[in-house]
């Protein structure tokens, strides 16, 4: 059974008074435990698709179901709760709270979910150890390197044991070495059974995924697997 199913997703909006068709009928199914990369050039609609899949944006038409729940049928409170408990987000710019320590950042979603303090702290320590930052848990995020901040963000995304991790250009702000560490971490998550959808324009990252969905001009133009798929020539239609 699929974990996530998106059907006929369209997204239209106005940009400086001009109509923009960001998504033009996207169908996508993701199985539980799958590692999917959504690849494509800048502006092809991959981040918009990720936002819609994660319930932080709504489609102009079409439906998204996560674990059989139609996101469009949920009100704001229910959708917020679903994002908190069933989806983990990793952003290109990490977006950690600078006034908090690494551990407090990881604890934040658990605190929001109502987990008690001791259990929350224990799980935060466990997750920080999982991403290799056991020794940095009391550091402010401003004291961490970019790679460390992204690993804290991944630990935060895992906090409430979500069904799905959505990552938007997770290595976009990192150098090659630290980017590699993040890729290794994603591989480990995948090996441990986590379902991952990663948006990237980085061929190297896309090649790590079990499947690649290529997007162009708001459509998925190709589905493939492995390194060969990542080498598909991509060009914007004129």
């Amino acid at each position, binding site marked *: 059974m699929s974990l996530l199913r998106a059907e006929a997703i369209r997204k239209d909006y106005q940009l400086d008074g001009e109509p923009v068709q960001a998504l033009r009928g996207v169908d996508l199914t993701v199985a539980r435990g799958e590692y999917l990369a959504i690849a494509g050039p800048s502006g092809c609609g991959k981040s*918009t698709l990720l936002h819609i899949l994660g319930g932080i944006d709504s489609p102009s038409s079409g439906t998204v179901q996560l674990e059989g729940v139609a996101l469009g049928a949920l009100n704001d409170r229910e959708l917020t709760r679903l*994002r908190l408990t069933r989806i983990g987000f990793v952003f290109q710019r990490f977006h950690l709270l600078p006034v908090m320590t690494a551990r407090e950042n990881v604890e*934040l979603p658990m605190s929001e979910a109502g987990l008690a303090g001791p259990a929350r702290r224990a799980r935060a320590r466990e997750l920080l150890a999982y991403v290799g930052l056991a020794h940095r848990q009391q550091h402010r995020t401003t004291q961490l390197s970019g790679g460390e901040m992204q690993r804290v963000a991944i630990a935060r995304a895992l906090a409430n044991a979500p069904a799905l991790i959505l990552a938007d250009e997770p290595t976009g702000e990192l150098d090659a070495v630290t980017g590699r560490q993040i890729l290794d971490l994603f591989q480990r998550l995948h090996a441990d059974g986590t379902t991952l959808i990663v948006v990237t324009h980085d061929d190297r990252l896309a090649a790590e995924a079990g499947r690649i969905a290529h997007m162009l001009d708001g459509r998925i133009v190709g589905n493939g697997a492995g390194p060969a798929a990542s080498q598909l020539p991509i060009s914007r239609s004129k």
Partner: protein
Amino acid sequence: MIPLSLRALARRPLRAALAIGGVAVASAMLLDMVMLSGGIERSFEQMLLGRGYQIRLSPKGTLPFDTEASVSRVSGLIERLERDPEIVGVAPVLGGSLYARSADSLLTVFGYGIDPAAQFLYQVEAGRDLGAEDTLGILLSRASARAIQAGPGDTIRIVGRLDPQIGAAAVERSVVVRGLVRWLYDYQDQRSVGVVLPLMQRLLGPLATDRASLIVLKVRADSAVPAVAARLRVEFPSVEVNSVAQLVVHFRERLVYFRQLSYILGAISLVVTVLLVATLLTITVSERLGEIATLRAIGVRRSRIIRQMLGEGLALTGSGAVLGVLLGLATARYLDAILKSFPGLPAALSFFVVQPRAIATAAVILVLTGIVAGIYPAWLASKAPIAATLRAEAP
């Protein structure tokens, strides 16, 4: 939530410090205005009740010492009042201008004719009090003593009134200074003297015979004061009978513009606080929209975002208020000293009275102000579109 709010404010320490400074100044102004609006009334009441005399009898249609009018046939009146079982103290006072000889000149002084056994007007600071029928003694304020250059034990000459035809003394007496006193209703550096009532009546001449400017009464029980005042009003229709509570009402009526001014200035300080805090928080929200959108994306509820922003507003106003209280107390003390030096005002009257209730009122108003100031930024933060904000934040 507050510690996190404080940590959030600490991200821009200079900006937060400037805002807290602004709130502190506005809070100080608010506190001073709250103290001013009720303080002078409170001080007036405390001053009148200082010696426990709760009722004042003055000439019909006047307030005590409002005019130079006086009550006639006062000895008979005092006798009747002393027979009243509810009244335990009767203190008559006759006020008027006197002159004291100093070298070759005459100094104008204000004279009180009092009954030393039942007095509410002064505290002895040096020397001793007058005896009950001490027609040879006099009490001086420190300002009088300085001007006359006399102290306890010295003999001075006091002139009751001048003959208008020749400008010479019509009534003059030698008296011995018994003590130096602080007159409770005097303005600063007022030259005042006190003698027993019969001597004062003689000094002021035939027109003051058996007269008093004021009679104050001590009633056995505070709860009986309104009833006693009402009864005396009926019994003595030719005099004005006021309880201290009624005098405070009269006083309040005279101060209505003063109080309105303090309300307006207090309200302005609140508006300044709201604008200052709201502006700062709005800027903060604008800067942190990406962070707020991220929090919403990972499942943080709108209510928590709202609480966070309100918490930051409260943290700002709270920190500012603590400093503001200290600043307000210091400025109140300074302003009080200036106002008390105005001519014609009793030195014992305070304009700014520190009352826990005033501080509590100011604190509650400031907390509400902090919440109000945080409402718009909180609404702005909670309504930030998640996806659009994250798109805008993307490189």
